């Protein structure tokens, strides 16, 4: 039977199943193959906090969404075109995100009476007409997997674990992707257990062949490679990019990288990644708690390392006293906060942007710290490098904000030329003549970095207030006010060292949409679409959240209205209102999920009817 081939500009697919079904792995494999194929893409892993939540339950559903296309892709997609559902719960949880007319590929073997009941279905939705507005393909994936493996003598449990490769095989066929990369990956990953490698490869191929031969599917699709800027690309997640950005900063600062960190979702992958790169002299220390994570990093910084601590919201809260110590002792330190849903333990595996105010001011007393944020997964590389640059130049802790969406999401990354990265090496103080620990550089107000091991510079620092210049303990009232103001002035002064903020779209007009962090893609798409529709709207995305760039006020004042979409209750808008006295409007979403572009478009239309 001949099958038609349709060309699409972009597609959004969601893989969904039990948290033990391997959906993250399946999605990642599809992503890597698609990246190598040359599409632009954006991904959204969406998984529960439980490692193996009870099978078949709604809360145990793990999903992975990928949006890819032949033109620029900025978001993981608003609505899905294809939903792969391994069981009824996966169907129920994700059906709302599927567009009308979208394709459902369901593992009919997963739709058992027990699973239907767990998902709250009274009748099997694959067998009644409740899904008639979609194109439903019920495939007995488990049975077909068993058939493919019947002569291998594997246990049912092992066979069952391979079934995600069958689904992946079908999707590779449906979207005309090569299977080689995954076959190669299976060989590497399961090299020590050849029977499992053989099983997974066989099932993947069986899935692909099934697509080819079955009469269920009448068409397949192609998505041409995207016309990206020429150069060499790789796929990268935000956590990988952050880790690599720190390695780059270590190389370019000529300092050893030290990471003190306590495992926490969704930041742990930075620890995992950095611990692999010992040949760069990276010293990773899995601390006993969050506090030891940061204080060990402060100790390493005191010793002359490029020091890093990584965490998420609850860990940030625990680190706040030590951040104050780093402010007082004026030591360079990078703190990466991969934000997640809160407060308290909150939604560990979901994304949010609600740590901004904590980052800017969540410490006792006047303890200013620069705050910068990454806007896309790949941007985490440049942002980590920039955080290091500021920390070393100004002798200050710097907070870098990312979020769960950026950390786990991936996109193609134009690999930078290592030699084009600037030298950010600091100068250690070595001359004892006229040395005082708090004698500042006139321009940056940074104090000298005098590390143990330097003859003649023996001195003491600590958390007690310092006498200006000498650094001795001082309780003098006037000195305290002077030092508080000086520490603030040092951080404020960084603004003069930042590139100017740049507006995407017209530099003035009716409406400016101001965003920060991981909302970049959704805002960019929404604003571009509304501009195409003739609206006077522009986009400004802030990397620098403390201090703000010097031209920010001027930009804000050039628009009649300012809208700030945030995954919180309006934290940046509060900062903008306070500093620039403008009636910034908020668009808030607090669902543990990124914005859809159309949610922002709707708000723009409301403001610009």
């Amino acid at each position, binding site marked *: 039977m001949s099958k038609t081939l349709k060309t699409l500009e972009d597609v959004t697919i969601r893989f969904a199943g039990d948290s033990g079904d391997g959906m993250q792995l399946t999605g990642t494999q599809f992503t890597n193959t698609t990246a190598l194929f040359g599409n632009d893409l954006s991904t959204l892993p969406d998984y529960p906090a439980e490692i193996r939540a009870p099978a078949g339950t709604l809360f145990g559903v793990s999903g992975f969404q990928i949006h890819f296309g032949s033109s620029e892709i900025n978001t993981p997609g608003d609505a899905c075109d294809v939903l792969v559902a391994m069981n009824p719960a996966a169907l129920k949880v994700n059906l709302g995100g599927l567009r009308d007319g979208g394709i459902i590929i369901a593992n009919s073997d997963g739709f058992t009476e027990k699973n239907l009941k767990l998902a709250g279905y009274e009748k099997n939705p694959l067998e009644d007409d409740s899904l008639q507005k979609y194109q439903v393909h019920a495939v007995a994936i488990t049975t077909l997997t068993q058939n493919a493996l019947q002569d291998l003598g594997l246990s049912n449990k092992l066979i069952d674990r391979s079934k995600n490769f069958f689904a992946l095989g079908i999707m590779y066929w449906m979207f005309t992707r090569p299977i080689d990369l995954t076959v190669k990956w299976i060989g590497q990953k399961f090299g020590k257990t050849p029977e499992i490698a053989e099983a997974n490869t066989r099932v993947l191929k069986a899935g692909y062949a099934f697509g080819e031969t079955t009469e269920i599917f009448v068409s397949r699709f192609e998505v041409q490679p995207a016309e*990206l800027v020429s150069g060499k*690309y790789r796929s990268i997640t935000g956590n990988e990019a952050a880790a690599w950005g720190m390695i780059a900063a270590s190389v370019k600062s000529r300092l*050893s990288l030290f990471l003190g960190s306590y495992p926490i979702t969704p930041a742990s992958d930075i620890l995992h990644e950095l611990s692999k790169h010992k*040949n760069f002299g990276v010293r990773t220390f899995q601390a006993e708690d969050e506090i030891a994570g940061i*204080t060990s990093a*402060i*100790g390493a910084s005191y010793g002359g390392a490029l020091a890093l601590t990584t965490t998420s919201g609850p860990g940030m809260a625990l680190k706040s006293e030590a951040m104050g110590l780093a402010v007082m002792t004026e030591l360079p330190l990078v703190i990466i906060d991969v934000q997640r849903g809160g407060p308290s333990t909150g939604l560990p595996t979901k994304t949010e942007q609600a740590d901004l105010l904590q980052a800017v001011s969540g410490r006792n007393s006047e303890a200013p710290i620069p705050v910068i944020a990454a806007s896309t997964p790949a941007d985490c590389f440049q942002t980590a490098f920039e955080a290091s640059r500021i920390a070393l130049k100004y002798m200050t802790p710097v907070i870098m904000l990312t979020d769960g969406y950026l950390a786990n999401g991936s996109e193609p990354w134009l690999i930078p030329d*290592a030699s084009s990265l600037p030298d950010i090496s600091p100068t250690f103080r070595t001359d004892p003549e006229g040395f005082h620990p708090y004698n500042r550089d006139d321009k940056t107000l940074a104090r000298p970095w005098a590390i143990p091991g330097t003859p003649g510079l023996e001195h003491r620092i600590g958390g007690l207030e310092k006498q200006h210049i000498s650094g*001795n303990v001082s309780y003098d009232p006037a000195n305290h006010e002077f030092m508080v103001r000086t520490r603030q002035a040092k951080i404020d002064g960084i603004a003069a060292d930042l590139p100017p903020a740049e507006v995407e779209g017209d530099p003035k007009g009716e409406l400016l949409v101001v965003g920060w962090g991981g909302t970049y893609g959704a805002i960019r798409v929404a604003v571009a679409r509304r501009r195409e529709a003739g609206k006077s709207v522009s986009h400004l995305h802030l990397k620098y959240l403390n201090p703000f760039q010097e031209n920010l006020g001027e930009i804000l004042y050039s628009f009649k209205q300012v809208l700030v979409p945030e995954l919180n209750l309006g934290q940046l808008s509060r900062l903008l209102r306070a500093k620039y006295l403008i009636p910034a409007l908020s668009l808030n979403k607090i669902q543990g999920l990124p914005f859809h572009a159309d949610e922002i478009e709707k708000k723009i239309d409301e403001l610009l009817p």
Partner: protein
Amino acid sequence: MNLVDELLQDAPATPEAKLTGKDFQSDQDVRWCPGCGDYSILAQVQRVMPELNIPRHRMAFISGIGCSSRFPYYMDTYGFHSIHGRAPALATGLKIARPDLMVWVATGDGDGLSIGGNHLIHACRRNIDIKILLFNNQIYGLTKGQYSPTSEFGKVTKSTPVGSIDHPFNPLLVALGAEASFVARTLDRDPKHLQQVVRRAAAHRGTSFMEIYQNCNVFNDGAFFTYTEKESKEENVVFVEHGKPMIFGKGKDKGIRLEGFTPTVVSLSDGKYSAADLIVHDEKDTMLSFILARMSNLPDLPRPVGVIYAVDRPIYEAELTRQIESSVGKKGEGKLEELLNSGDTWSIN
């Protein structure tokens, strides 16, 4: 070669001139209460430092918060007065980043065993090569007199007007339980012994834990006088020494004998027992170390003072350095260009 290695290349690894205790005194006025036991500890540490043949610039003293934690200000070495309880963690980071430094921690019973208990035990467990001086005065001094985690049950203080109902920690048992490789106890009012223990700790490789009985003459005066004063010390303290039988008492007339796992006091003057019947101290005997440490809590037994336990085992930062060297050996020194271009990549023309 990174910037720190470059800097260290030019820095002498041994003192250029002979140092004295005075060289280790900073220009800061010492601000402990007159009569505080901390003065003696400071003086003995300063006295031992020149013997170590390590230049001042290679030493760092790290502390937390509390009276004891003012210690670094008075040492003319590198020093860091950090935040409450975190000194072992900060020292750990410093020592991992800079294994070339000799790193000391000054802490107290509140700082080290209450708010910072977690860091203390994990430093011991990892066997980071840091030297921990724990000043135990069984009271909170800097906050003016609340009971501490080592205060005795029933202790009346500002926060326990009718007596503490907290069972205290035995610091030696905490350190042993945390797998410390060097555990010792000494006394602020016995300068010679204190110096000996500091010397031993300095020579040990791995976490050295020293509990120092320290008199707080303002809030808990005389807490340890039974063990530190001439008239009662000999009858109430057994100074343990590796390879020697455990003898104590005025006129060396008593000893400690093991009956099963229970240490008991026997007389050496009634002809029933001789030195040959007593426990011979073995610093490397793990079981014995726990028995000795537990003696502190048992009635009718003298307090053991001295090096209770000292063994060699792998040191954290040395193991990490070994892993780094092995990784460099296998993969070559990391090259950024190669890292960025590693794995699956594709080109667009």
